[in-house]
């Protein structure tokens, strides 16, 4: 009987030791989000570039080209703004995880920032889901 008790205690402690640290789970989630985001950034940039290049190719003179590019810039400005918001929110969240602080508020800020980016995500590019963050009703 004593053997069983010690065995149970041993396996319980072994299980606790094997349990992932809650900060480690968040660190892995935060890392997954940044890896996915950084993977999608060149795709966004390429699409932005291609749209501008296409407009330049269609233009008849320099002024026409500039005016066409202004339209492209206006279309993409919300994307870059939302990207920067996401970057800042993720940075804040990651810093709090690394410092083992209270991460709830910073995670909610990150979720808002991510959903903000999804709301302005260009229709030409399929959105890449990031680590199960589910946004509410968009737009």
């Amino acid at each position, binding site marked *: 009987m004593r053997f069983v008790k010690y065995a149970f205690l041993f396996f319980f402690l072994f299980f606790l030791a094997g349990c992932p640290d809650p900060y480690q789970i968040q660190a892995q989630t935060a890392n997954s*989000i940044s890896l996915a985001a950084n*993977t999608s950034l060149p795709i966004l940039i390429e699409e932005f570039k291609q749209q501008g*290049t296409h407009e330049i190719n269609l233009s008849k003179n*320099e002024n026409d080209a500039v005016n066409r590019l202004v339209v492209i810039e206006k279309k993409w400005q919300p994307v*870059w703004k939302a990207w*920067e918001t996401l970057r800042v929110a993720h940075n804040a969240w990651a810093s709090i995880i690394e410092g083992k602080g209270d991460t709830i508020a910073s995670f909610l800020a990150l979720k808002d920032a991510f959903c903000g980016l999804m709301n302005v995500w260009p229709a030409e590019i399929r959105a*890449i889901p990031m680590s199960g963050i589910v946004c509410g009703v968009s737009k």
Partner: protein
Amino acid sequence: MSVSIGEVLDSLAQVATAASALPAPIGLVARIIGAALSAASAIAKAGQDPVVEIERILSADPLVQKVHAEWADLIAKKFPKTDPAPSAPQTLPSPPPARDDPYPDD
């Protein structure tokens, strides 16, 4: 031989990247698939090892500025600026000719 899911996804992403060079719309579809596979691969890798330092999201600003510069180059190549018609050279008025010293030493 064990092959991780990350390696498989990486290989698929490489195939998709190669296919993205094909003409649109195949290229565009392949590019989107490639992005999704790369992201999935990154997530799979991130879940394997304990994270010591969290990777930060990159700023888009430098890349956007680079695109602006490339567009400016493209416009300059497509619509090269012609030199203005040559006009009479504008030169500063020359100083009056040197006169003989009005107060010569005696």
